[in-house]
């Protein structure tokens, strides 16, 4: 093992552009700035979580339901690994947080994870580019819509962000100290990110490897080999121990690559919308880092990974979240740009630039936060009426499943049947045997055949009808906000039908 060195290597000397004399007080203030900003970020996110502005996103419902089951020892038995794009680590964490403080608790945990990831990124930024850029990077993070949006969303991407940010930091510490213990740590964190969410291996791997290549030169080959060996071992332990289900997952994914009705042009537009500004500012940072071109390009390499993944697979699922993994690496470059702007042009351009970024981030956050329906009212209605043993038809079931299972209204989340399950039962579903029929927006809609079958039963009565607001990208590539209906039908064969509720 190489011995540690205290003096930073040449690769870690901040660019001359961003270094100038300053007093001790100013230096101290500068050193504290990113952490103060990060604390503000966390506080802000916690406030948003506490406000419960929107109900659970579909994925949040899935992970909470799976997490509750996992904590009860049913996680593997329920076969979540056959279709999850990650391990049960985050679901278990989210389930525990949900038990403590409900949706706000799960989201607060997510906020904490994203904050940890950002802290790792800021440490890395300081290691690579100095204190001044680190402070500017913190500003950049606070004006990034996807980052802020992810910061209060209880999905497994947040755990992956924490691990990826940690891996980023560990890589820079490894290079700074020339101590491969840090490289081993980075490899384990990278593996953890991958275990939290598998595709993250693809999003984060290239920039991490390119970073090592750019900073370590001829020694990079051994470093990368060691990194791959350790990360591979950790991932293999997981893979081999859950091999049966993971093999099924692979076949599930190859057979099911839903587009959710999103066209390629919508997908492309969405990616451009999310990444164009950071990419532009990042490229500016690359240009400014003339003497560190390889390092800058390594950082920039994180941006296209997620968009390419979605464009190649045609799968829009999670595209807004996945952008964040690229941003983790490009934010330091944006910090370089901001630092340059703050230094050269002072307030003339810097403040409008920051204001513009903040405004754009706000728009992005609002649009992302409104991109799924608020299903809490319907879930509450069901929670009051459903009895254990009831079977429910819910086209997009997991939000309701989380609430109903947590409140003991269903025996298992699988008492709720969504569109996919009904279509893959292997035999025609007897719709009339279900006690509830629920139609909510935000996921796959009920096929006409199922809905008409429900109506033909003659025993289902609409007991709840409402609507919710959703913002999404329209076919004309404009964001549109619309209201979508929510319906709950109850199967009551013993009671005579009532006019308005009868089909």
């Amino acid at each position, binding site marked *: *093992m190489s011995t540690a060195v205290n003096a930073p290597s040449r690769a870690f000397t901040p660019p001359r552009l961003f270094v100038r004399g300053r007093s001790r007080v100013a230096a101290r203030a500068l050193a504290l700035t990113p952490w103060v900003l990060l604390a503000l970020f966390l506080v802000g996110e916690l406030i948003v979580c506490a406000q419960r502005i929107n109900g659970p996103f579909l994925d949040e419902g899935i992970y909470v339901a799976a997490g509750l089951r996992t904590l009860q020892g049913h996680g593997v038995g329920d076969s979540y690994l056959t279709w999850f794009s990650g391990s049960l680590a985050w679901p278990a964490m989210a389930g525990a947080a949900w038990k403590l403080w409900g949706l706000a608790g799960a989201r607060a945990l997510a906020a904490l994870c994203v904050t940890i990831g950002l802290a790792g990124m800021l440490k890395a930024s300081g290691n690579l580019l100095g204190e001044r850029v680190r402070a500017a990077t913190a500003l950049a993070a606070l004006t990034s819509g996807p980052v802020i949006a992810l910061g209060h969303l209880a999905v497994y991407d947040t755990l992956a962000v924490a691990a990826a940010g940690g891996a980023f930091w560990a890589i820079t510490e490894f290079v700074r100290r020339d101590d491969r213990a840090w490289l081993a740590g980075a490899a384990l964190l990278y593996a953890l990110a991958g275990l939290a969410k598998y595709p993250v291996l693809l999003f984060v791997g290239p920039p991490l490897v390119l970073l090592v290549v750019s900073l370590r030169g001829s020694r990079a080959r051994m470093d990368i080999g060691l990194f791959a060996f350790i990360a591979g071992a950790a991932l*293999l332990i997981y893979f*081999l121990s859950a091999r049966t289900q993971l093999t099924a997952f692979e076949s599930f994914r190859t057979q099911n690559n839903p587009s959710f009705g999103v066209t390629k042009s919508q997908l492309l537009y969405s990616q451009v919308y999310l990444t164009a500004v950071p990419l532009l500012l990042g490229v500016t940072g690359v240009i400014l880092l003339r003497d560190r071109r390889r390092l800058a390009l390594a950082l920039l390499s994180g941006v296209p990974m997620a968009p390419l993944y979605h464009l190649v697979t045609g799968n829009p699922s999670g595209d807004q979240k996945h952008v964040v993994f690229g941003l983790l690496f490009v934010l330091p470059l944006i910090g370089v740009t901001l630092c340059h702007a703050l230094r050269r042009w002072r307030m003339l351009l810097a403040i409008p630039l920051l204001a513009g970024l903040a405004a754009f981030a706000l728009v992005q956050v609002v649009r992302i936060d409104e991109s799924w329906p608020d299903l809490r009212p319907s879930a509450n209605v069901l929670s009051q009426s459903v009895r254990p043993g009831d079977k429910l038809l819910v086209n997009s079931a997991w939000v309701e499943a989380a609430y109903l299972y947590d409140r003991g209204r269903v025996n298992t989340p699988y008492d709720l049947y969504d569109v996919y399950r009904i279509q893959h039962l292997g035999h025609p579903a007897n719709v009339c045997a279900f006690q509830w029929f629920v139609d909510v927006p935000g996921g796959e809609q009920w096929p006409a055949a199922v809905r008409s079958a429900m109506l033909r039963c003659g025993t289902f009565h609409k007991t709840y009808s409402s609507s919710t607001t959703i913002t999404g990208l329209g076919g004309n590539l404009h964001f549109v906000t619309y209201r979508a209906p929510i319906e709950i039908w109850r199967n009551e064969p013993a009671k005579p039908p009532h006019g308005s509720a009868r089909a």
Partner: protein
Amino acid sequence: MIDKEGEPTMSKTIHQDRRTQAVGVALLAATAWFLPWLIAHADLSKPWLSIPFLLASLVVASAMLVSVVNRWQRAEPIRALVPLGEEPRVAVVIPTLGEPLVLLERTVRSVLDQDWPLQQLRVVVSDDGHDDNVQELVNTLALEYSAATLRYHRPPRVGDPRRNGDAKAGNLNSALAMVPASIDFVETRDADDLVGDPRFLRETVGQLLAHERIAFVQTIKTGDVAPGDPFDNHQPHFFRCAMLSRYAANAVFPCGSGVVWRREALKEIGDFPTWNLVEDLQSGLEALRLGWESCYLPIEGAHAQHSPEDLPNFIKQRGTWALDTVRLNLWVSKDGLSFRQRLQFYELALFYLQGPATLVFLCSPILGFLFHWYPVVTNTNDFILHFWPFAAMLELFLVLVHRPMSFEQLWRARLVWAGLSFVYARACILAITGGRDGKPRYVVTRKQNEHAWHWRQAAPQIVLLSALGGSMAWSLAHHGLLNSFDIGSAYWAVLYGLLLAGFVRLSWHGVPLFGRLRSLGRTTAGAQLAGAHVAGAQLAGAQPAGAQLAGAHVAGAQLAGAHAGVAPQALLPAAQSMLPTQPMLPAQSLLPSARRPASTIVGSTSVSASMALHEAPATDGALRLSEDQALPLGAQRGISTTL
């Protein structure tokens, strides 16, 4: 790195690294967790597979235990320099046998130029080659350094009843007679080893003067190597790690060069032992058995002007060390050694015993991939639960116990260990089957590198690598990556396949791609080059420092490692005997042999050939290898010349 530092004993400072100790204990715990499970789950329906696997695992486990204990602490001597003006007389014995004159001259000059008064130096160049050119060189130097005493000595020929021991030991013993009884300290130095540190004698003799029970002081040996030291000739795992631990246990052994002996101790052990191939390891053992102390001084005492960097020469050298070490451990009594000292010597043997163990480990996945034959019956989770902690701790221990080596250095050492494991396995077999008196004849390590594609020497590794890769590919094609393909085995197989591939790569060290292809043709068709390449593949050699590699190895390093093999072309055509004895120009040695003119090739092989000429026939009962060579012109028997 050092948590507990600066605990001085009477003569040494003990260092303990808590992290290494903790990981060592964890490794032992992991071994204790893994091994009983392995035994309980052995597939006894396939005893031909499971029993060798168990035995191999037991070897590794034993080696683990011994390594953890042996490497528990390190020590360094408290420096004791000989004051100016108080230097005692020291004899420096330089045995030579056909080394290029230019190397020998540099060596003698470096001895004379070090920080030691010339009038207190007596240098004896003991020439087993009986070469007039060497004699002339010594004459010239004696005139130039008139204040010092330089002696040219011709030991009796091997086989001469007046000679005590063959090869280097016999040479040294004969030279000792040239050292007056008034001289208390004798340094032995290889003819191509420069004095690395100008204070070498001041430091080493200082230890001998300060502590009267120290028999010898060994120092670090380095050398001129290619960038990155691809053949691990510097052996930092030995000189910078293992020897320090051996010193802590008073179990240092001499490495043949860069070592200063107390004359009294040498007398007590009956001069340099002649039982083994080389004298160094056994001489140290004998001194320790008689209650003498050993000292290891981590300064650069010897700097080889040549290091073996072609595969045949390298395999020859390391094979000799392996055979010597295993023979010594098998057949030489350890009476008189303390338990700690014995453990240090056992570690050497256990390392080489892992050669056959590694073969077993590497063949297992091949059988698994091809036929689904496994030595244990278990499920995946159980296997992960028991084996992976052991593997993880082993890897971590290897890294920690070899600090401050870089990972690159460790990787290079490991690929050499893995690649040579077939050589080690062969050495074990020869040592066992040869019996106590089965001393093989040895050949001096060539002092020029033959750069060519030595594919024959790498053939066993290539075959094994191909079998590993081929069986994996076959299994992958038939079972699918995520289905029943044995990914766990594949993971380890790939790791150790990389080590094997690294060793195979050494087979064309120094040759560009096109030279490689051309040299393939040469080595296939031409007996001359082949003869030159494999001159040392007779598992014999006069290279000193018999077991130093072994001492450096942490037991278990070869777990699941790859095996290498010595090509069976060890017996050479007699073409060597046709070659003239002449030193080779250094610049020539840098040329790839395939690109050299024929005369250059002849020149490059000449040294090894001439060395082989003068080797004695094997003693009775020895493992005889064919030799049909004439004596050189001008050879004189048993004549000592004093200048």
